[in-house]
């Protein structure tokens, strides 16, 4: 069903249901997300994409169903190995980029400045930038937010609309970073409405509708990708999502 870099399951969602009052945002979402793959989750507004990601991140408890992340039903136990980037930037406006990353690194027991510097450089930001995050452009915030989500080297990376309000070039740069992380063995789930940005790097497009995963479209692996170079756009055109 899906292009596989591995047969190991990183995230196993089984019949997930999530109610908000009487409204069901998830209505039996099931899917085995394989380790080392990059999944792009697509769907209309209200399809349940963000709810699914928040449930996987442990920010919400499912009303029904089972969820295993990295083989554990207790998300708390694997919190160290999961990175989450929300729709909002999850950053303090009053602090600089490095101050933000230092604090969030501390939450994961990392007290090494070099880790924060590397994370900032990876997303194309200058670690010496003293400007507070409140004065960053939207693209810079999104990049820093991505750095925050991956600075503790998680095995599973969950990204909710990382390209929203980001210019095309920044979005392409971020997609390339995600491709490199996937090539390094990370399992990545990305929600976006800009599927075209991800078509060179995605392994599969997962389609959601009315709280369910209704179909998946595979992007076949290519020698270029296996060599860590991403995938040529032309080759993935046949696998473009509907």
């Amino acid at each position, binding site marked *: 069903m899906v292009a596989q870099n591995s047969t190991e399951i990183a995230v196993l969602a089984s019949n997930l249901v999530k109610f908000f009052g009487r409204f069901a945002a998830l209505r039996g979402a099931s899917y085995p997300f394989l380790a080392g793959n990059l999944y792009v989750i697509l769907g209309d507004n209200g399809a349940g994409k963000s709810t699914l990601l928040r449930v996987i*991140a*442990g*920010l*919400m*408890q499912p009303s029904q169903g089972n969820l295993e992340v990295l083989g554990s039903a207790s998300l*708390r136990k694997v*919190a*160290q190995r*999961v990175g*989450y980037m*929300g*729709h*909002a*930037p*999850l*950053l*303090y*406006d*009053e*602090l600089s980029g490095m*101050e933000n990353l230092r*604090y*969030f690194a*501390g*939450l*994961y*027991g990392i007290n090494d400045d070099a880790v924060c510097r590397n994370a900032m450089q990876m997303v194309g930001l200058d670690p010496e930038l003293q400007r*507070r995050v409140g004065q960053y452009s939207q693209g810079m915030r999104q990049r820093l937010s991505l750095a*925050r989500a991956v600075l503790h080297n998680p095995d599973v990376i969950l990204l909710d609309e990382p390209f929203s309000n980001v210019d095309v070039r920044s979005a392409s740069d971020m997609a390339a970073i995600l491709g490199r992380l996937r090539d390094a063995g990370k399992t990545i789930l990305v929600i976006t409405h800009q599927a075209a940005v991800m078509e060179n790097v995605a392994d599969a497009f997962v389609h959601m509708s009315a709280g369910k995963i209704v179909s998946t479209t595979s992007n076949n692996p290519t020698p270029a990708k296996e060599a860590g170079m991403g995938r040529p756009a032309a080759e993935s055109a046949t696998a473009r999502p509907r």
Partner: protein
Amino acid sequence: MSTLAMTRATLMKDLRMEWRSKDAINSMLFFALLVVVIFSFAFNPSAEESRHIAGGLIWVAFLFAAVVALNQTWARELRNQVLDAYRVSPAPANALFLAKAIGNFLFVSVLEALMGPLFIVFYNLRSVGPPWQLAVVTVLGTWALVVNGTFFAALSIRTRNREIMLPLILFPISIPALLAMVDSTTSILTGDASPDFWIKMLLVYDVVFTAVCLLLFESVLNAE
């Protein structure tokens, strides 16, 4: 990372942010200053009358002013939904609570240090009892206010009218502590009675509510 180290890191982060924005301190100072001045003009008490009413005035002013800081505490975490970043991390929930409570304690203590002399001048206060006991009551009373305030502010962050919800929940549950603070302060200022009972009551209140808040905070943090 240990709870202590995480508490320290979060506290330092909050102090840095407050130092830069001064949101909580400025709001509290202006509010408390207004209360002092308005009450002073409204009552115009003699020195003897002041000793009898000052305990109530001081603590009510600090309680109202503290609510301003308590609301600010969690507002910072809600902006950009930063609280979610803490919730998905393996960091202990209690470290966040302790850091916020200690931060609020420091902010309110700064307010008390600045407003104390003004109270003395405006109300012509002279303590008949030993003044060091006032310091004990101030520390215990301030902790009583902020530990509950921090907890209930966290409880009300997901409600629509959280600025109104906080005092509605906090004030009734603070009545025993407020009673102990006012009576012990009045006892010390007038020298009429020993404040020992009220100080012990404050101590017990602090221990009980700190323990309960620490036990329940993780559930509050992860509530949907």
